[in-house]
Each structure stands twice: as C-alpha cells, then as structure tokens.
C-alpha cells in the first residue's frame, strides 16, 4: 500500500503538471488578440475498496461503512472561458470587435483539409486578391468572402456587419458585403487549433449562423479589437498554487519511498 500512496501522488503531480502547462499557455497569450483563457478541471479518481460496506463485524452486525482508499486525481478536461476580453481602440478601419456572442467564420487548412474555423479575433487585413483575411500566420479568409476593389476608400463596418466603402469619386457609400457570425450551443466544447482559431466538435454542436444583432448574435464595433481575456494576477496566483501542489505531491512520494526503505531494512 506504500505503493498506492506513490501512484496516487504521481497522478496528483501529473494533474498539477497539466495545469501548469495550461496556465503557462494562458500567460503566454496575455497579449494575443481574441484569445480565450482555459481552465483546468480536476476530479478524483476511482476508489479502491479494501472492505465492502455491509461486511459483518465480530458482534455479527453488518458494518455500515466500508474502507475505501482513493487512487488520486486526474484532469477531467480543460474548459475554455469565453468571457469577453477588454476592448482596445485601434482606429484601424478593418479592425472589428464582437460585442456579445458570436464568432467570425474563416476558411483554414487543418490536417491538410480545407475546413471552416471560428475566431473572436477581429484584426482583418486585405490580401493580394482584395479579400478580407484574418491577421494570423495563414491569413485565413473571412467567410462569406468579402472582396474590396482597388479604388475602395474609407471602408466602414457597421454594428449589423454591413461593409461599405466610397468608390470612385464618391461621395455616396456603396455596400460591398455582409459579415456573418456563428454561435454555438456549447462554445466551451470548441477545439482550439492555434492561430486564434477554433473548430466545431460533437460537444460544441453545429454552428448557428446569422447576421450580427439578429438571433442572439452580438453587435460589431468597428476600429476596436477584443484583447485577450487572460488576467495576469489570477494566472500568477494559479501558477504559485499549482507549483506548491506539485511540490506537496512530491512529498507524498518521498514519504512513501521512505516507508519502502524502512521495509527494505527491516531485516539486517
């Protein structure tokens, strides 16, 4: 059973290690536009029954309580936290922030396949073809596609997602396209694939798409960006606690090891 203690402590260390990784990633993304922090969820593992409840004791009465020893802890999952990050006024005409629920939809490549991905980052650019693309490494193309002409000037994106510009001499504005958003029954079930992108999973459910300000979607704010929702203070407290938890569990292992040493030296 000294061995049970060792393995239980090892599961604790492994769980703390995972949490440390998650916290480190959160902190690394403190300046990533549209980043959502993750939380590590723990649960206790199964219990080993040394004696079943109900076994009769010496007075022939069934013992109501058994003897159970837990086998440690495990990470039950990491959970995305979709609280809105703080806003930054950037004054760039192609920066958009979603106020409320919803994700921008983009096309990206994942495992060699072209797929639909979702993002909260609204730092858009124009690519060589004039299309609106996300400012990530791949330049994922915004869907439905919006193509800006060469002489489009003074581009505006309104709260409802209509993209307009002044073409030629002006001064009238022409509608160029419409930004659509997607939302999910369970956004926490989305899978992060890097580059500020999420993809749908069975847990998130299928996307529900629509225009901003309709159907429960948030509204758009032009010339603003949603910053990371990581709070450094909270993460640092988590970091300290996790580090100490890791150390405490290593003490359990040392204790169990000491016991084994005592056993090994019993007979001299």
């Amino acid at each position, binding site marked *: *059973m*000294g061995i*049970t*203690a*060792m393995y*239980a*402590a090892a*599961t*604790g260390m492994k*769980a703390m290690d995972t949490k440390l990784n998650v916290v480190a990633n959160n902190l690394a993304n403190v300046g990533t536009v549209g980043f959502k922090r993750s939380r590590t*969820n*723990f*649960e*206790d*593992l199964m*219990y080993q029954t*040394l*004696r079943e*409840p109900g076994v009769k004791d*010496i007075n022939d009465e069934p*013992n*109501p*309580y*058994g*003897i*159970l*020893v*837990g*086998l*440690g*802890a495990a990470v*039950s*999952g990491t*959970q995305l936290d979709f609280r809105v990050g703080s806003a930054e006024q950037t004054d760039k005409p192609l920066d958009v922030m979603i106020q409320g*629920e919803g994700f921008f939809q983009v096309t990206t490549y994942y495992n060699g396949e072209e797929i639909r991905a979702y993002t909260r980052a609204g730092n858009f650019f124009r690519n060589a073809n004039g299309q609106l693309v996300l400012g990530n490494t791949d330049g994922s193309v915004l869907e439905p596609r919006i193509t800006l002409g060469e002489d489009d000037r003074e581009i505006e994106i309104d709260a409802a997602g209509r993209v307009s510009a002044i073409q030629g001499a002006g001064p009238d504005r022409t509608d160029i396209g419409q930004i659509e958003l997607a939302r999910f*029954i*369970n956004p926490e*079930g989305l899978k992060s694939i890097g580059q500020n992108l999420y993809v749908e999973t*069975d*847990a*998130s*459910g299928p996307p529900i798409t629509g225009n901003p300000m309709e159907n*429960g979607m948030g509204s758009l704010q032009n010339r603003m960006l949603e910053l990371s929702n990581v709070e450094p203070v909270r993460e640092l407290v988590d970091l300290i*606690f*996790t580090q100490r*938890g890791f150390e*405490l*569990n290593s*003490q*359990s292992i040392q*204790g*169990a090891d*000491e*016991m084994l040493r*005592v*056993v090994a*030296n*019993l*007979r*001299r």
Partner: protein
Amino acid sequence: MVYGIYQSAAGMIVNQYRQAVLANNLANLDTVGFKHDLTIVRERKVETAEDALSGRLSDRILDRMTGGSLVAPTVTSFRQGEIQVTGRETDVAIEGNGFFAVSDGAKTRYTRDGRFSINNEGLLVTAGGRPVLDDRGKTISVPETARGRIRIGEDGTVRSGDEAFARIGLVDFADRSRLCKVGANMFEAVGTRAEAVSPRLRTNSLESSTVDPTKAMVAMIEVSRAYEINANLVSMADTTLSRAVNDIGRIQ
C-alpha cells in the same frame, strides 16, 4: 514475543494505509468540491475476543492486552470548503449543507462540484458531462433562446432574462457517513435516502477542496515516524528472538 512482532506489523500496515489516504487527499488539493478522508485507526481486540471466545482466556497475560491496531472504516469530512470567486456565470457553490443530484447512467449520484455548462443537447451538465437534476429529479433543458445567457439564482432558479425555467435541486442525507465516494467528484448513497433541502447557492463561485496542506504534511511526517518506530520494534523483536534461538538455545 511473537505476539509483539505481529502487533508492530499491524501498526506498520495501518500507517501504510494512512499514507495512502493522505496521498490521495493531497493529490486532490485542487479538485473542486473534494471532501477529504480522515485517517482513522481503531483498536483491534485480542484474538479470543475477535473469535467470540471471551470469557475463556487462552493466555492470562496476553489476552489482557489489545491486539494492536486496525484500519477503521473510511470517514469523510463534509465540512464546508472555501468559496472562491471565479466570475463564470454557470459556476455554482453550495453554502452550507446539501448536494447537487446528477444523473450518471441509470443511477443518481451526488456532488458538491458546481462547474456547470450546457452540452450540445442543451442540457445543464457538470464538468464531467453528467446532467444536473432539478428539484423534481428531472434533467434541466435550457430553451434554445436562452442559451449562452443563463443565470443561476441563489435559490437555485435557472433564468434567462427575467424568466425562470427550472430550479436546481439540492438534497441532503440524514446519515452523511453513508455516502460512498465513487470518483469523478461524485458520491453514491448507500442505504440512506436523499431529502430535498432548500438551496443556498453562491453563483459565479466554486467551492474549493477541503484539503489543508499543512495538516496533511504534518500528518504525513507523523505517519512516517510511526511507521519507522513500528519497524524498529519488529527489528527489536527479531533481535530478541535471535538471542533466544541462537544464544540461549545453543548447545555447547
């Protein structure tokens, strides 16, 4: 002589068990809603008493002593864990007594872990994905229009806007020691009935684990030393036996 060696060995086994329980407690230092187990040891009766032969002492001297120590049945401490504010709307902590009822397959199990979310079918579920039950024992389905914007009140009502559409059920047990841990932050009730209690919840918060690292570490040091002492006593008994066998009994 041989009697003493078994008592010391029993002492070692009991302390191994205590170490295992402490290790599990420490491993769950950061598990939401975790309740720590106590390491309780009980006195073992002498063999004649355990065999229900009392009254007929087999050894006048030895039978007046105890038979060493045994592991007592697992006792879980159900004291309130600290409430930590997380700011997440569907995080719920229970203040005072009570458990959330969750549906785990065909069984109903109980938990203090209130990290709720909405799954792809629109049900309110725990972090382990098990549906949370309402005050009538039914699963809680969140209406399509309310998804993403639900709020949970201190009395357990689940609202979207001003409209309450469900109430989270909270139960308690007359004999809480009959709750068995089954892992995944859940308890199973063995031979005790759940009674509904009125919820006192703290929203945007979670109840942290009740494990006190200081107490656990001190207990671990104590266990370690008790183990060593018992092991030394086994060695001493061994030495004495060796004297008896090799020195006193030597034929010259």
